């Protein structure tokens, strides 16, 4: 179960999408979010869906992985759709029990679910094609102008990096501790809430102890390698806007104009 989490995972590759500057990618993602929220027409969504599918193909991340990243949120999507289906007054298509399904409801439901799905897929694409480190690097740079207002952009990015690095390790560790306690007869699945909460203690205590131990070790290792915060630090992979980044901005720009135009 714990191994199934794919949201926020990186798939190494060398597609154009992988090579785009992460700052550009983050910027364009936000821009697309806005475009998607303003789009209401079928043709607009047609273009956006085609665009998204093209991106998936370019990224060479398998469709199955993309769908899998939607799976944990499937219920929210279905729920959103269902709520809208019955909550818009208008031309009634059919009635089920006390609910009237209207044409407007279907339309609203479709628009909202499509929006959510597009948002999820596009954000997943960002994390699938951008190494977490590049992502934090981009974040650090996007936030760096705020440094003079006291935003610790380097420290935040460092924390993110370490979190990203240790999530798989801690997941593995949790899995192992759970199994070890299960082997000693611990039961995490039955009983009332109080009992279940209590049954987490044998997992949490070792997990925290181990996390503290790791943090201690890591701090030492960082210090031994001369870490002293962001001051005087260089970076091997400096980000540089290339021609392909400009192309990406241009393409998304044209697309947005077209989509917004069809909104009318």
């Amino acid at each position, binding site marked *: 179960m714990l*191994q199934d989490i794919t949201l926020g995972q990186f798939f190494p590759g060398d597609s154009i999408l992988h090579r785009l500057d992460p700052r550009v990618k983050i910027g364009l993602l936000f821009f697309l979010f806005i475009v998607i929220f303003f789009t209401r027409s079928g043709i607009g969504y047609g273009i956006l869906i085609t665009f998204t599918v093209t991106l998936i193909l370019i990224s060479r991340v398998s469709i199955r992985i993309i769908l899998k990243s939607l799976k944990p949120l499937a219920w929210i999507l279905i729920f959103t759709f269902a709520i809208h289906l019955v909550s818009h007054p208008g031309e009634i298509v059919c009635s089920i029990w006390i609910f009237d399904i209207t044409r407007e409801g279907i339309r609203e439901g479709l628009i909202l679910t499509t929006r959510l799905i597009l948002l999820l897929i596009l954000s997943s694409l960002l994390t699938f094609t951008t190494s977490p480190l590049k992502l934090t690097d981009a974040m650090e740079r996007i936030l760096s102008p705020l440094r003079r207002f006291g935003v610790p952009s380097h420290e935040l990015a460092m924390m993110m990096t370490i979190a990203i690095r240790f999530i798989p390790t801690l997941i593995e560790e949790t899995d192992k501790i759970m199994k070890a306690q299960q*082997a*000693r007869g611990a039961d995490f699945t039955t009983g009332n809430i109080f009992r279940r909460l209590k049954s987490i203690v*044998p997992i949490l205590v070792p997990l925290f102890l*181990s996390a503290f131990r790791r943090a201690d070790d890591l701090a030492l290792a960082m210090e031994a390698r001369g870490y002293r915060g962001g001051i005087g630090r260089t970076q091997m992979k400096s980000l540089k806007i290339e021609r392909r980044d400009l192309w990406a901005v241009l393409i998304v720009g044209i697309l947005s104009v077209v989509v917004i135009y069809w909104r009318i």
Partner: protein
Amino acid sequence: MIELQNVSLIYARKTPFERRAIDDLSLKIDEGSFTAIAGHTGSGKSSLVQMISGLIDPTSGKIFVDEIDLATKDRIKARDARRKIGMVFQYPEHQLFEETVELDIAFGAKNFGCDEVETLSRVKESMSLVGLDFEKFRNLAPLELSGGQRRRVAIAGVLALKPKYLILDEPTAGLDPSARKSMLDEISKLHRKKNSTIILISHSMDDIATLADRLIVLSHGKLVGDGSPRTIFGNKKILDQAGLARPRISQLLEKIGIDSDAITIDEGIDAILKTKGRR
């Protein structure tokens, strides 16, 4: 008896990360035996023992413990079968969580439904089995102990479950030489005196040669060798396939040019003295 019938285990099925951890494996482990499992990291050793102890379900195939199918619908029966197997993980000291040694060792026994009197007697017994003095250690916090002692506490916690079959996954990893030696002595004592069935995962062919009466060799999730350590260590094909070395003493004899099936140091010394004495 533990029996595996055509067991396979596939991780991350139907994703690009799909990995066959165990591939169509069948074997039986008899009561009272001391079985060692060897193979590279990633050969499937850990997956195999976790399936035997009922912690992960095989993707296909069946596992029986004393003729009870671990996957049986009868939940009580399945639970009781699982409880016959004690599992000591790698670095088991990392799972300790209670405030005192006594409470931690009692944790499993209480979960298994033992009353206070029974639990106490089990704690005492298992502490003496791993060589920890009850009065001296019972009220200490696990964090106050040395690495070797903490590991003993963790093992005692499993022994307190009175498992009929005891699985140990690299119990000596990371210990210093003296702690390592006494750990191996305790395990061997446990086997001889309590007649426990032991399944030991180990990377040390030397330890396997001195302790085990049977050696199972895994490679890429497949069973590639099964027999007495002497037979396996005499079979170059199996060892090469699994990428394992022979015990150091066997390698030494070969280099000297003595033809012998010795696998323990005692046997090796005898073999050397015999050839040297003859001349």
